[in-house]
């Protein structure tokens, strides 16, 4: 895995350890949050995908129905109907699209919505065209209009879903990249750093301990040596006092033993 064995270039001290640990905690929390966001987005993404699929199916039917109803209207009302309707179009459209934003887990999704304009400018042509095909085919014209309005509504909804789909796709990719980066680069690196600092600190501790042990041993030995010296001195002192009592000093006594020739009888 990427980042394996890497670590931050830090001085291995307890303070740094604290700092790095804090960063790791932060990274973990961030990772959890981002993961949650990514899951939420994915759920939304799936839902939108499902709706897109069903809408696209419905779209085909609606469009087919709409164009067939146009053919029906033309059949009954005659070909001039097309031109009459075209020529009587005026002013702003009645069916309009409004755009607004939805906020899903911090991602802004554009959303389109179709609505019928009710203002005076939009209402006027509706009454003018409602009499189209009066002498034949009026109902077909109305049916055709309804079918096309339905198709248009679906089209707007589909456009909205498609745009959301693309935006959400980009957002999910970014989030997932962040989650993965946190999971496989930042966190291992911090963990490695912590392990490294811990190791270094342990090493230090062991060194200290060994040094202490050494010093203690030295001190012990020194103490014993002094004790021994003191003991010997005390012994000598005691022997000197005995000799004095005898009237001979230790030295003289010794020299008395060694003076003169060597006695052959004495083996030792």
């Amino acid at each position: 895995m990427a980042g394996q064995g890497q670590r931050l270039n830090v001085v291995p001290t307890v303070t740094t350890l604290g700092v790095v640990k804090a960063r790791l905690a932060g990274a973990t929390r961030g990772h959890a949050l981002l993961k949650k966001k990514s899951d939420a987005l994915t759920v939304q993404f799936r839902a939108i995908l499902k709706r897109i699929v069903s809408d696209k199916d419905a779209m085909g039917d609606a469009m087919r129905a709409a164009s067939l109803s146009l053919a029906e209207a033309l059949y009954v009302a005659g070909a001039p109907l097309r031109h009459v309707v075209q020529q009587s179009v005026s002013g702003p459209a009645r069916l309009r699209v409004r755009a607004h934003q939805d906020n899903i887990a911090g991602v802004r999704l554009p959303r389109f919505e179709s609505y019928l304009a009710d203002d005076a400018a939009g209402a006027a042509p509706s009454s003018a065209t409602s009499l189209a095909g009066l002498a034949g085919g009026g109902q077909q014209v109305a049916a055709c209009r309804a079918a096309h309005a339905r198709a248009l509504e679906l089209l707007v909804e589909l456009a909205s879903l498609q745009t959301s789909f693309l935006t959400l796709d980009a957002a999910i990719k970014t989030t997932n990249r962040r989650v993965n980066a946190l999971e496989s680069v930042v966190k291992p690196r911090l963990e490695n750093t912590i392990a490294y600092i811990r190791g270094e600190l342990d090493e230090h501790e062991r060194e200290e301990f060994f040094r202490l042990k050494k010093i203690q041993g030295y001190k012990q030995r020194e103490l014993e040596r002094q004790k021994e010296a003191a003991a010997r001195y005390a012994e000598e002192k005691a022997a000197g006092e005995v000799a004095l009592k005898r009237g001979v000093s230790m030295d003289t006594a010794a020299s008395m033993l060694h003076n003169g020739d060597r006695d052959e009888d004495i083996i030792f």
Partner: protein
Amino acid sequence: MYGWEMLSFNIHDGFLEAIVRGNRSGLLTAADYNNLCQCETLDDIKMHLTATEYGPYLQNEPSPLHTTTIVEKCTLKLVDDYKHMLCQATEPLSTFLQYITYGHMIDNVVLIVTGTLHERDVNELLEKCHPLGMFDSIASLAVAQNMRELYRLVLVDTPLAPYFSECITSEDLDDMNVEIMRNTLYKAYLEDFYKFCQKLGGATAEIMCDLLSFEADRRAVNITINSIGTELTRDDRRKLYSNFGLLYPYGHEELAVCEDVDQVRGAMEKYPPYQSIFSRISYGESQMLDKAFYEEEVRRLCLSFEQQFHYAVFFAYIRLREQEIRNLMWISECVAQNQKNRVHDSVVFIF
């Protein structure tokens, strides 16, 4: 004159009657329609049509065909037939033939007026006009700013003048609903045509009055059904009905107060010829009514060919061609949109 036409009819009109009867045999038959309904693409339709009278009009069309192209070319065939007949015609047949096109002329005038109100380009509008309804001064319609000017400058020279002067009283074009204007004009046109046919007398009057009565009654029913739920008042509705026909005057009174389709049905079932049409349609449904009316119309038009020495065959021929073009449009639309199961819904077999 009735009964004696055979003595003098052929002097002036025998040739043209022969021509129109020849043209009639060029109409597509049920076998043709069955073949057309089997087509998979528009090119197949074109291939089938090359074997018919439409062949020369479609053969030079480049391959990605559109429904509109087919309809356009077929209409061209009808226009050529009509012009050919008009050239040969003498009075009063030429007037009769011109009367047939006034309906399209009204449509064109209404189209230009609508377009002008919304400031469209006149040349663009002229391309969209029906070729049968063209007249010389049609382009100058666009200069008119109000009704009086429109009448004084342009329409006074056209055959439509009396309809306008009688029926349109509103001063300003903007205030008037274009559809109401169209239907008022059409009402006046039908009444005038009716009077003209009565004046001709004989078999022509007999057959044409029957056909026009049916047309007027059909319009009355359609206007009633289509104005249900709109802001058209009962009195306005009543004014759009033509003052002749089987329904006039008592049926009109009943239709004027109808509020839903079943009431229309109740009013219409008192008239035996229409009872059969409504009996084919289930209660509360009105979608299939148009087809039922078309079928009845085609039946009556076909019957007019059974008699000789009268002018109604010309009217019938033009109407049947128009129905045929509608059928072709429907078949092409269904084929183009891959809706083969709907093909038989609206095709009206002619012979």
